[in-house]
């Protein structure tokens, strides 16, 4: 298999950002109440993550390294991510007003989704090539979307389940997330 495909598959399943590396848990818990909004959130995050991976690679290699500005890496990546998030918010507000109303605060919060900054920084640390970093970002985004959609559909069913009173609400969500995480740990060691 080509390297890029291996990176894509391993970041979706083996090194899943949410359930194995525990990045991006805030939108995972916050935006998974309804399947519709979870799909919207997943699409927005995929867009931002993939683009952020590509642009941060270019900034790193054509701006930061040639001018010896590596110490500005985190702040410049944050600026890029914030701009991309704002861009996707404008697009969503114009094309999907209802989705924008439902997601509300969670769209700006993609900025603080640690998975996005994590992908940009890990790309630098693992010295990926340009194609590899795009696939790394896409894989992280698809893994996040998969988890978000899985968890949202599960939560829609959990609402109707007969759960003992002390476990209702956040408690059963945490337990469910833990069990999904266990399932993903089953992939450990594959692909490398």
């Amino acid at each position, binding site marked *: 298999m080509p390297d890029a495909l291996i990176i894509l598959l391993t970041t979706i399943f083996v090194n899943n950002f949410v359930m194995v590396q525990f990045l991006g848990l805030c939108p995972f818990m916050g935006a998974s109440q309804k399947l519709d909004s979870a799909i919207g959130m997943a699409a927005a995050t995929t867009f931002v993550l993939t683009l952020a991976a590509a642009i941060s690679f270019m900034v790193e290699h054509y701006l930061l390294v040639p001018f010896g500005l590596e110490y500005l890496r985190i702040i410049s990546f944050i600026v890029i991510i914030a701009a991309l998030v704002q861009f996707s918010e404008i697009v969503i507000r*114009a094309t999907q007003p209802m989705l924008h109303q439902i997601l509300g605060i969670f769209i700006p919060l993609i900025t603080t989704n640690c998975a996005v900054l994590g992908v940009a920084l890990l790309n630098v640390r693992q010295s990926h090539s340009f194609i590899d970093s795009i696939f790394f970002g896409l894989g992280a985004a698809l893994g996040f979307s998969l988890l978000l959609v899985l968890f949202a559909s599960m939560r829609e069913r959990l609402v109707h389940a007969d759960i003992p009173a002390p476990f209702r609400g956040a408690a059963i969500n945490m337990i469910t997330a833990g069990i999904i995480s266990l399932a993903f740990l089953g992939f450990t060691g594959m692909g490398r």
Partner: protein
Amino acid sequence: MVLTGTLGLALIGALSSLLLSRTSKHFVNHTDEVVDAIDRLLPQTQCAQCGYPGCKPYAAAIADGEAINKCPPGGDDTISALADLLGRKVTGLDPSCRKASVATDEQVIAVIREEECIGCTLCIKACPVDAIVGAAQLMHTVIQSECTGCELCLPPCPVDCIDLHPLAMQPPHTVSPPASGFECIRCGLCEEVCPRDLLPQDLYWYRDSPSKLESLELDQCIECRRCDRACPSHIPLTDFFRSAKLEKQQQIGQANRAQHTLARYEHHLERQVASSQLVRQRPSTDEKASLLDAIKQKRR
């Protein structure tokens, strides 16, 4: 070192702000759709108990982040529907929105004590659905079928001649469903005797789900009571069907009424805008002075 760092960051910032300003100009906001979707869930009584002049303004306020629990006529149904639409939490009705006279859950309408009315037309302007008819110096009266009981006509009345009366006109012959506690054994005997080939057993099981009843063609039931007699558990099936039918009819009536009230409210708003523009066309005091001067100079 510091200079290149500053320049580099400034470059990134400038490029991203250029991108953002371009996109925000290119895409136009469509908040109307959201407001319309919210407005369709509101009861269209235009009662203003939420603190906004009508249902549409309240819908716009909700879209901007206002609480969803401020609609007493809609009650818990509206709150849960809005929470479902907007992904917010279901909360109890805001007690500050409920007026004292409506606290009894009883529908009220305004009635003018006609012998005391001085014909000032102030209440006519206050009514959001134009339910008060009358002319200056002539007695006014309330169109009972249009009044939503919002009390907005009470404060402007200079002689306090408007009372709120409980709406005596109850919906015609409601049949409350018989007390549950009957045990359907799912024998299917009722299905064999039904002359319209309906499924009385299924109709009974899904009696609380209107959409299911619709697909089971409850409307086709002719209330012949043959299923009642066939039932070995002696369930009064026909009574359940009759109450379900009436409930559906009432809901349709309410929806029609809401549409009608909305149309009246919009007409009221249009009229208000038109009259305010008429007032605006009159010259202001400054303009009057200059106009007078101009006329005087002409005469000279």
